[in-house]
Structures are given as C-alpha cells and as structure tokens.
C-alpha cells in the first residue's frame, strides 16, 4: 500500500474528533488540575487520603462502570442533567461537549497524579528563599515551581492526551458512536472489525500503537530530564 492509499484508508472525521477530544480534555485538565494538584501536594487536611483515593478511582474502575455513572449523572434522570437541560436547552449525553466532560472525569488521575508528584518534589525552602528575596506567592510559583516541575507537568500532559486518544468504554457509553460527532478512532476499530473491514482497522490500530509508543517515549525522556536536574 502506498502512502497515498494509507491516507485515504483512514477515516479522517474520526481522527479529527479524536484529536479534538484529546486537546479539549488535556486543556481542561491543565487549567483545573494544576491548582488542585498544587493544593493537594502542599496542604494537609483531614480527609485528604479519601480525596486522593477518589481521584485515583478511574484508574481501577471498569470504564463501562464509570461511563454508566457519568451517563446517569449527565442525563435528564439526575439533578445535574436536568439543570443543564433547563439552562441550555439541550442534553449532554451523546454530544461532543458531554463527551469532553466524561473524558475529563475519566482522565483526572492521569493528569493529577504526575502533577502532584512533580509538585511534591519541590523543596519548600526554595519557595521560602524566593519569598525572602521579595517574590510574591505567584512569582515564586512561576519563577521557581513551574520551571522546576516542567518535565513532570509535561509528562502529565502527554499521558492525559495519549490516554484520551485511546479511551474506549467511557466514550462509547457517554458519547455513543455518532460518526463525525462522538466516534473516536478506538471505537472505529471495533466497528470496522464488526463489518470485516480489517484493512482500515489495522491501519487505525497501527496509528494508535505508534502514537501511544511515541507518547510513552516522550514521558520517559521527560522523566530522565527531571532526574538530571
């Protein structure tokens, strides 16, 4: 098969939905996750272990279980879903926005764990030194914490992105399988195998395999850089 054919075999709307979902999920998790991870890494409070266990839950829960609860929570059966429908006039399940919400929840541990681990390695005295040198809290965060944690934070970003690209169960439960709207590459493979389109399934699978491997290479590389520092 020539590169030209390879290009044509891939289902591009599906690739686009997958990439869009990964970008949105990662973006939301960076914006929400950094402050939360900083808070969790630097403060001690009662019930912290419970909260951390809750954050890790999506790691061990079957994706269909998580997807089922999310579908229930976002749908019109729940107060949250009803509130959303009354406020905006449409329902979250089986839409791209709903898919992003579900994907964010499912990926919380993939972003927060690396963020927290990175933040936990920062020596508190460096922050205190920055403070005595006149830096505000925000300045010490941007001039000391962020540069020191950058490799760890980036590896969290890469993991989240890669994991979102490969998510199957949650996406199927909450997003359904609407071509061009909520169908992602992982689901497309399943569909293709169902209709015996092995060629396209193998190309899509190959792309995902290559992407996953590259992502992991990148996180290990970043991990090594963090160690050198």
């Amino acid at each position, binding site marked *: 098969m020539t590169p030209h054919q390879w290009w044509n075999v891939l289902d591009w709307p599906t690739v686009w939905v997958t990439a869009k979902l990964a970008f949105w999920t990662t973006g939301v998790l960076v914006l929400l996750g950094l402050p939360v991870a900083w808070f969790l890494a630097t403060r001690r409070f009662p019930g912290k272990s419970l909260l951390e266990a809750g954050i890790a839950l999506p790691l061990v829960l079957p994706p269909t279980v998580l997807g089922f609860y999310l579908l229930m929570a976002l749908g019109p059966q729940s107060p949250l879903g009803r509130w959303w429908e009354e406020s905006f006039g449409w329902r979250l399940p089986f839409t791209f926005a709903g898919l992003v919400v579900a994907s964010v929840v499912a990926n919380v541990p993939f972003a927060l764990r690396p963020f927290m681990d990175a933040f936990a390695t920062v020596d508190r005295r460096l922050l205190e*030194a920055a403070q005595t040198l*006149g830096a505000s809290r925000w300045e010490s965060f941007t001039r000391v914490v962020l540069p*020191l944690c950058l490799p760890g934070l980036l590896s969290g970003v890469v993991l989240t992105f890669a994991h979102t690209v490969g998510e199957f169960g949650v996406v199927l439960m909450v997003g359904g399988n609407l071509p061009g709207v909520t169908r992602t590459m992982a689901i497309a493979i399943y569909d293709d195998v169902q209709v015996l389109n092995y060629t396209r399934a193998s190309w899509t699978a190959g792309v995902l395999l290559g992407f996953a491997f590259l992502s992991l290479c990148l996180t290990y590389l970043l991990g090594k850089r963090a160690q050198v520092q």
Partner: protein
Amino acid sequence: MTTLAVDIQKRFSPQVCIQGKLDVPVDGYQVTALLGASGSGKTTLLRCLAGLELPQQGTIRFGSEVWFDAASGRVVPPQRRQVGLVFQDYALFPHLTVEQNVAFGLRRMDRSSRRHRVGAMLELFDLLGLERRYPHQLSGGQQQRVALARALAPNPRLLLLDEPLSSLDAPLRARLRREMTQRLAQLNIPVIWVTHDRQEVLEVAHHVAVMDQGRVQQWGTKDEVFLHPVSLAVAGILGVENVPVATVLETSTQGVKVQLGKLCVELCRGAPEGLSPGQQVRVCVPSGAVELRPPGTTQAAAQVLEVQSRGPWVWVRVDVGVELECWVARHHAAQLPLGPGQVVALHLATQHLHLIPEL
C-alpha cells in the same frame, strides 16, 4: 540606636513551645549569635523573624516598624520585611545559574543597575568566572558564597544566617568564618547568626542570645554572657569548664566571700541579691581564670589529678577541695611538677569568677 525588639511565643503542642525575648541591635555591622543545641528552637526563632513562621503571641518590632503583633493581628509578610536569609543547606535555585540566583531578588531594578549590582556581589564574594555554572557544579564553599551573595544583593536591612557553615569541613569553616565577617563588615549590615558552635560565637559575635529548652535564657554582649552566665544550663552551653559548688561565708555591699573547697574567695562583682551566709551556690570558674604556679608561690596548694598533653597545650585537672580543670602552655608546664599526685600552687583570677545562686 535602632533595635529589633522580639518578644514572641510559638506553640507547637502543649509540651513544645518556643519563646524568645531579646533585643538585637541593628545599626550597622553587629553580629548577634543565637547559640543553642539542636532542637533548642534557634531555627524556629529565626524563621519567625523572617516571617516564614507565625508566632501565636507577642510582638516583633524593627525600629519603629511593627512586623508582627498578635494582639492587633498585624503581620508583615516575608517579601516586605527586606530581610536576607541564608538557609543551612543554602536552598539555591537548582534551575538557575549562579548569576541568575544572585539576580533573583533584583526583579524590580532596571536592567543596567541590576547588572551592576550582580557584578558587584559576584566580585565581593569571589564568584567571578562562575556566573554560568549551576549550583550542582559548585563546591560547598562556593555554594555558600552564592547563597550569601543572593541574600545580600537586594540590600536587606538585616541578614539572618541559619548555621551558615555547618555543612562545611572544619578547616574550610575556620577560613570562611573570617572571610565572611570581613565581607559583612564591609557591607555594614546587622547579622543574626544561628549556631551551635561556641567557638564560632567567640570568633564572630558581638552579642549573644543563649537558647535552651525552647527559650532564650540569656542575652547580652558576648563578654557579659560568657563571663556571667545566669544559670547552670547556660554555663554548660557556653562551655564553662568548672562550675563547682561553694558556700557563702559573708555578704557585704562590696561583694561576697565564699568557701570554694579549700579556698576562700572574695568576689567583687556579679554578686546576686539575697544571698545569706551558709547558703550553697555555684561558682563559674572559666579555665582561663585558673593559673598553676610552682609550689609554694601562692597560699593555695592543689593536687594534680590528671594530665593530658593536647598539642601546644597541657590540660590539667587538679583538686583544691573541689575539682578544677585548666590549661597550661607547654613551655610553662615544663617548669611545673605535673605528675599525678604532685602538688602545685593555684591562683584564681577572682575578677573573672561569677556566682550562680542555684544548685
């Protein structure tokens, strides 16, 4: 005279409470040492001064400025106290070069004055040629100088040093101590220097605060504190070699007469109030106040108990009814009968003795 007036309490638990009351002179170059064993609360007190810890009670005033007042809830954050702090392990920013570390506190300066200031600090602390190195590429002594240069670059009003030399080798420590004090004197900055090393205090300090059990037990000028410790514990921390028990014979307005073993000693200074004849007290006898002479030259005869050669000095323990330790220069020791059991004459410099009314 401007002073840093501290009177604070920080409670960690019902049992553990750090208390500090002292006045630190902050006009120009003056080193105030905070001396105490590890765990005595020195570092906590220092962190309260920097604003990194908040006490629960009391006040901290820098001249007319209130840095902390528990009653009114006023707290000046560390960023605005203009205080330089050097951490025990320096806490250099590992992702910044020497130059960037030193420039860290100069954010608000314009570019050219910042360059000028960094250059001046690098030169003063002998760091030229190391500008582009990262902290992990420096020796311990170099790191220490970077930490000092970084803390001093923003021109703080007070420098706080937390055991600044404790992570260095002993020979290097002695040299750096001299270099450091010369540079700090050149910058004419007041310094609070936390240490557990009394030799360091004797070399660098003008004032001393002695901490024990979480409290500042005594503070004053170096000589005042070293010659007149207020308690047995303080005398121990200051390394007073002999603190024997004596009995008060008589008191008068001029001084006190005590029976110290076989010796009758008259002390003119430092006699505490309220002593009565017959009372037992402690006498601080620094080894430097004990002099051994050839037998028969003074009235007091002392029996030699133990002799140890310690390089150019000879350490001797003698018995005059109480045991006393002292040092004799080697060339002088040759002229004395210093075998165990032999008898020498003993002279006490009574003006350097001090009474502690506690047992």
